[in-house]
């Protein structure tokens, strides 16, 4: 608990207002969890179906708080070097040559000459620790392996990193850490226990409508309402990849771009690709579209 949390917002309502200023409509639960993460200096672990806006939370928070967003995109086989730091070997070699050509023969001095911070390539985690006042987004943490998770756990509890050649670098202030997971793999309990947790659900109709209105104010309200109602029904069809909020926004934007004034099967068809990302899903929705639109009235 040594470095103090970097941010002070006085209430969950203040967090919600901050998010809303950046046009992110948050459930109260997300505002409360974010507030606690900020104030307790704990990482925020967000889970939810793809497209519900997990990553967006980090982006919007960094904008709202006015601090840089440092992003670590996780993938299978992610190594520490890509997350933490690497020595810039090429430049180190050049430096050695340079020192030699200047007549430097002392081995210790050569060594000291190349293990300096300027030859350190800082990767996201180190960068965020150094900035302190930053949002560190560790995106899709479920894609890494367990060893990397254990390492993350260590960094997230101490907020310091030891570089053998340089010593220990500590965060001056705690960055806000946001972890997202799509649950392709179960995260370890120890990591979960360390975090403030929130499951982002699909929004209710009213909430999703507010999101669409906030993001696409030029879309007529009646049309927006129909689009949202349609998507909410499509989610109930049991598709392979149910559309998230991001897809709702894509569909609405496509309709705007296509100049569609009202929802009709023919008008909708070309825009379905914005909503659905699997061929089988497109087929299914296309068949059901007439009924779906009828039900909307």
């Amino acid at each position, binding site marked *: 608990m040594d470095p103090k949390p970097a941010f002070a917002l006085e209430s969950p309502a203040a967090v919600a207002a901050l998010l809303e200023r950046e046009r992110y409509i948050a459930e109260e639960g997300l505002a409360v969890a974010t*507030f606690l993460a900020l*104030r307790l200096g704990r990482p925020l*672990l967000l889970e939810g179906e793809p497209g519900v806006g997990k990553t967006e939370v980090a982006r919007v928070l960094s904008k709202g708080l006015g601090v840089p967003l440092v992003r670590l995109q996780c993938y299978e086989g992610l190594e520490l070097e890509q997350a933490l730091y690497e020595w810039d070997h090429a430049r180190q070699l050049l430096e050695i040559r340079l020192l030699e050509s200047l007549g430097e023969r002392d081995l210790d001095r050569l060594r000291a000459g190349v293990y300096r911070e300027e030859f350190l390539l800082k990767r996201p985690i180190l960068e965020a620790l150094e900035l302190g006042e930053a949002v560190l987004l560790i995106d899709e943490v479920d894609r890494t392996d367990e060893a990397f998770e254990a390492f993350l756990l260590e960094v997230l509890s*101490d907020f310091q990193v030891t570089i053998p050649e340089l010593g*220990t670098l*500590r965060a001056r202030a705690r960055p806000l850490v946001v972890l997202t997971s799509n649950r392709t793999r179960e995260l370890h309990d120890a990591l*979960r226990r360390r*975090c403030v947790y*929130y499951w982002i659900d699909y929004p209710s109709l009213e909430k999703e409508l507010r999101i669409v209105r906030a993001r696409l104010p030029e879309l007529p309200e009646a049309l927006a309402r129909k689009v949202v109602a349609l998507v909410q029904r499509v989610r109930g069809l049991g598709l392979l990849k149910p559309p998230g909020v991001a897809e709702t926004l894509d569909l609405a934007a496509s309709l705007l771009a296509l100049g569609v004034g009202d929802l009709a099967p023919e008008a909708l068809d070309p825009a379905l690709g914005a909503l659905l990302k699997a061929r089988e899903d497109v087929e299914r929705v296309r068949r059901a579209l007439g009924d779906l639109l009828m039900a909307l009235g």
Partner: protein
Amino acid sequence: MTDPRILETPLLRGLLGFVGALRAEGLHPGRAQVQAWLQGLLLVPWEGEAFYLASRALLVGRKEDYAAFDRAFRRYFGHLRPKALPRPQAQGTLPVLGSGEAEGEGVLKGAYSPLERLLRRPLEGLTPGEALLLARLLAALAFPPPRFAARRRRRAPKGERLSLPATLRRALRTGGDILEARFLRPRRQAYRYYVLLDVSGSMAPYARALFLLLQALKGRGLPLEAFAFGTRLTRITPLLPLPPQEALPGLGRLAEDFAGGTRLGESLRAFLEGEGRRLGRRSLLLVLSDGLDQGDPEAVARALGALRRRVRRVYWLNPLAGLPGYAPLARGMRAALPYLDALFPAGTGEELLAFLRRLRDLP
């Protein structure tokens, strides 16, 4: 006087009992999680669904456990009725408040939980049992107490500054080769709290609740020295470890001895001359008083001015300061104002909680 049954069901146990309810549903939050939960409760305003949502965010780590959490929450805190819970049932099982509660269920009807209502009520109106529960809740929420980085450093395997002597000494073990660096990091120290509690006539309705809070804080290990004052100053630290049934009558007798008057300046000077030498940068001085003083305001200013230079912070908690339209007009209060780091209202549990929160934000 105090109902012993309430003594056996303190609110803290009530809160921690929820962890037991979670276990019954198969959830096992870790100790660090429970601690973060209590800390989180200290931070969130207990409004709307924040209590429920904060508890869930800190005690649950996966969506699959939401349902079990909701069942436990409904069973345990049924009266909180968060909107997010599908079917709220009014089945409060938290054994908290005394039965003779005047502003009944009908008025607020589930708008606030008993805990929240307890926090909002004036301290003077609390029954002894309620005051005790409140004290334990506040003490539970106030922990761990703030620590500050001391000037002196200690050696540590990790830290921010290299300790060359320690590194070299360590290197002797390996024949002079430096294999392991040793560092220095600042010591973390707890503040020492000096509390002056006004027990004169005008403060009598509040003194009991405030004393119970001091007891609860001390009971959790807060380094705290307490003094009661009216016409004189008496050290009451020895009363703090006693059970309330024994300690409170002792406090009452003191108040009677003082025959209701307040001589603030003299009491402060007595404190200065007695404990004054032991004060230092680790010390926080808290004065709990309404500032109604029959003594010399000049003496208040002189003594407090001298104390101010000897401690890190001087805070004044005044039970009246939160009342609408309050202005610090009482003579003692007015004389003290220039020497305070802050004046806090302390008339309800909520106000005390706000003060404890501020305390935690101390550097």
